[in-house]
């Protein structure tokens, strides 16, 4: 379970290219859609006070 969770995080973070079991199985497409929806909800919820990226000033 934990290794699957870690693999999912690594996949989302770009560390690995092959989709983990959680995102690749029979319901993989649905799970990937859920990840996008969750991300969009989080972005929408927190984007009200966005600021400049720190490294743009360097």
């Amino acid at each position: 379970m934990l290794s699957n969770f870690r693999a999912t995080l690594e996949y989302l973070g770009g560390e690995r290219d092959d989709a983990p079991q959680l995102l690749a199985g029979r319901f993989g497409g649905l799970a990937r859609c859920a990840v996008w929806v969750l991300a969009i909800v989080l972005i929408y919820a927190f984007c009200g006070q966005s600021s400049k990226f720190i490294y743009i000033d360097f």
Partner: protein
Amino acid sequence: MLCQPGEHTHLIFNTFSYYLLFLIPSAALYRLAPGRLRPWIIVLFGSGFFLYFAYGMAGFWGAACLLIFLWESLVSRLYRPCSRWCMLGIVQSVLLLGVFKYWNFFTGLMFAHGANPVRWQGAFLPLGISFFTFEFYHYAWDRRAGKTEAGTLGEYLAFILFFPTMVAGPIKRYQDFLPKLRSKPIGWSQDWERGITRILVGLVKKFAVADLLTAWTNHLSAHDILLADRRILPLWALAYGIKIYADFSGYSDIAIGSAQLFGIRVPENFDWPYGRRNIQRFWQCWHISLTRWLIDYVYIPLGGSRVSSPRIYANIIAVMLVSGLWHGAGLNFIVWGLWHGLLLAGHRLWRQLRGEPSNHPVPVFLSRVLTFVLANAAWPFFCMDLHTAILFYRRLLIG
């Protein structure tokens, strides 16, 4: 909602205009275009991107800095292995950075006891200059060493004006970029699914973690430090440590994901740096493309590890001082670089004296905690001017 176009052009990756005006149309056109036109699509949209955001940040003269790209690209056509033109390219790239970024800092140090008569009142920093200087420098150096081919003008301009990485990296290498530019992009749906996922992950890091911590990091000012209970100060510094990680790794995720929409892979920048067991591993996993650049173009030319032991330590500290000064024209950044230089030198000395580290879980855990604490303890020098950072530590340690 993301910020509206034109409202905050300095935000760049967290604006709709970045996605709607630049990323999606250019990536789609790039994939549909024949091979000979692909570099020019990047050049066209990269120029538009620079003009749009640089004008928003620094007005006409900021946008006019596009001429730096064009001038440098024309000069680069003269580069040959062992040629003096390459040295000229290196010198002019460093000079440009020096004038724009460090003129007021160094002349201010020269006239420390009075008004600076040569102060540049209207000084501004061209968008992305610290990063594109690295790419100019790398190309000139590697052409001189015969490590990379010239490519065409269009290919070189595409390398320099590739807008997903133009402003803050990851810092690319020409010899890695060129084959990807020349090959036909395949796997459209897979690249777009992975790229969009990566962009969304980056935006979540920025909005839901980094920006949320601003409520704490805003307190890192002289006024609040003087008023605060000293027990809260480490939490503010820790908040900044998490914020800058989420902010910059989120930025890198968006840049890497954006590049993937073109079918172009660019270097990774982070690999769980805060979980590393020593400061050397931390730097191998934090801003990876910068660390590699500094090793290849500063540390190795200084002699690297093939010189006497004292010189090696001096080289390590010198590289980190360069890194500190590159991050900003301020004494605080020099102290931040010195801090990390001393940590890296201390780690090397420790390894020489004690040999290979133990793999027992307890020392491994303790070394991870120690690395995390020492890396985070340096952030006050990064995010505040020197006087305020010293005040922070005086309040924290003395009261």
